[in-house]
């Protein structure tokens, strides 16, 4: 191959390459952008638009009223919304503080070679593969006051003498919902962590071992930093799913008792589909999206520091 001359033609080549590079990039991105936004642009804009109105869908003799930021202010001042938001944060915190370390531990276990590893990994996916309706009803049955497996187990081991109606206690109900959600989401997070672990070249560990680093050192200084992008993904996923959690609440408690499990996702569903308050729902949805975006940026900033160290 001829040597590339380091003259003005290489500059031209570089510019040409630059354009071509962007061209290629744009071509590569185009199909995705079309799929994502093609059908979504109108709904996104429309939902933003109607968030400024009170639509009166069920009282059509009253024309839609322009409220400006009316919906937004009523949301921000609503005690019910604030409580729902608080419960959602509780869900997210449990998911993050318990779920993520648990998922990481599972991924670490699955990363080692052992017989039937492929089978075990596939079995791990089962909670994720169970259809939402079945998952909700299964947990409803497990927590059931009269026929539940939880009660059955505790009774069998003599821990309780009478079945307990778990879901009737406001404080416990939300915790149980959080635990059921945790169970369903750990497989996905483990899988993502596992893929991340598998991308870390073995040589790094070998080199560190040669340098005398202990297992814990290797974990803290190699594994964790190199997993930071996966960590970010898992944090974001968990946060989004906490804000979207709906079917478990719907099937387990319907938001009760006395609203103690009414999380934002459920509240949104009720407002949107049962009360057809679309203006209000759109405003709340956009607020939620903004909040998630802020959290995502915060997570990203926090973790970028980590990644830089690696």
């Amino acid at each position: 191959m001829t040597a590339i001359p380091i003259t003005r033609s290489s500059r031209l080549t570089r510019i040409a390459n630059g354009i071509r590079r962007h061209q290629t990039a744009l071509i590569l991105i185009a199909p995705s952008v079309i799929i994502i936004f093609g059908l979504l642009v109108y709904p996104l804009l429309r939902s933003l638009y109607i968030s400024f109105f009170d639509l009166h869908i069920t009282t059509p003799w009253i024309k839609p009223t322009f409220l400006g930021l009316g919906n937004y202010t009523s949301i921000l001042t609503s005690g019910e919304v604030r409580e729902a938001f608080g419960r959602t944060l509780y869900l997210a915190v449990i998911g993050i503080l318990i779920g993520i370390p648990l998922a990481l531990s599972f991924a670490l276990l699955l990363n080692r070679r052992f017989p039937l590893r492929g089978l075990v990994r596939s079995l791990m996916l089962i909670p994720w593969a169970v259809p939402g309706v079945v998952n909700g009803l299964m947990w409803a049955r497990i927590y059931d006051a009269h026929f539940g497996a939880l009660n059955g187990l505790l009774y069998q081991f003599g821990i309780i003498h009478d079945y307990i109606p778990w879901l009737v206690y406001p404080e416990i109900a939300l915790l149980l919902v959080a635990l059921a959600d945790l169970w369903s989401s750990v497989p996905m997070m483990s899988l993502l962590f596992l893929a991340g672990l598998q991308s870390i070249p073995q040589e790094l560990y070998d080199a560190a071992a040669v340098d005398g680093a202990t297992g814990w050192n290797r974990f803290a200084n190699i594994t964790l930093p190199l997993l930071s992008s996966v960590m970010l993904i898992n944090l974001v996923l968990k946060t989004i799913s906490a804000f979207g959690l709906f079917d478990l609440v719907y099937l387990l408690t319907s938001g009760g008792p006395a609203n103690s499990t009414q999380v934002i996702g459920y509240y949104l569903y009720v407002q949107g589909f049962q009360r057809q308050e679309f203006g209000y729902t759109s405003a709340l949805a956009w607020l939620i999206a903004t909040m998630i975006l802020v959290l995502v940026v915060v997570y990203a900033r926090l973790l970028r520091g980590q990644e830089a160290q690696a």
Partner: protein
Amino acid sequence: MTLRLKRLFNNAIFTVLILAMLTFILAPIAWLLISSISTDQELVEIPPHWIPQQPYFQDYASLLGAPPPKSSSLLTASTIALFRTGLVNSFLVSLGVTVVCLLFGSLAAYAFARLGLPGGEKVIYVLLLAQMLPVVAILIPLYQVITALGLLDKIPVVIVLLSMFHLPFVIWMLRGYFQTIPRELEEAAMVDGTTRAGALFKIIVPLSSPGLFAAGVYTFLQSWNAFFIPLIFTSSDTTKTVSLAIALFVGRHDTDYTLMSAAGVLASLPPIFLALAFQRYLLAGLVSGGIKG
């Protein structure tokens, strides 16, 4: 001697941990399985019969082919037929979404990872907006758009709609995995005469197969479980997915719990089998790649 003991000890601990993990994951599933072959009477005992004394396989039989019992109002020939076509439809939809997302997603992820776009991070966040906005807000306007275009009740449309919601995440995920692969590998290949496309397929894809696998499983399972989009955008029996078909076993006043469990077990199997099959395929690729330990 001590080394062997130490290794034995390590293995023992490891086994215990693996078993603990499996218990955590599979205990509720075990309960689901038990419920699916029990009769209601055995389940309502206190404590319940953990191992059914009179296993009841009728629900499985009916779902798999035998005629349903006359007495059930929820398990009828039509709901069973819907369950079966639902399995096929879910499979088609999930496969379609996975292919679309992996294909276009990896192209876009590559662009983001290597071909530095102006905006970079921010563009990804805009893409993620589709996923961050609760679907309730856009469902009705989306429904209006689809109805206006006459695209209701078509499986390819459901595939596109679900891809719409999962593609941003896949792009983001894959970008992360692609970024962990050192640039030098591609640049070396390109110096050797490979095109960028070639670099993508011959180097990036094999090396990021764990990430691709993860993204593929994520997309397949999220699509398999999708409920709202298929609910609103399909209407005829021939396009329903299995998540909807199962919801049909929930009655207005009560639920046939054992039937639900059986249907749930059956509906969870296809993705698991797929994962098993592909996992071996990908593991084999990894070992031959020789880069990872």
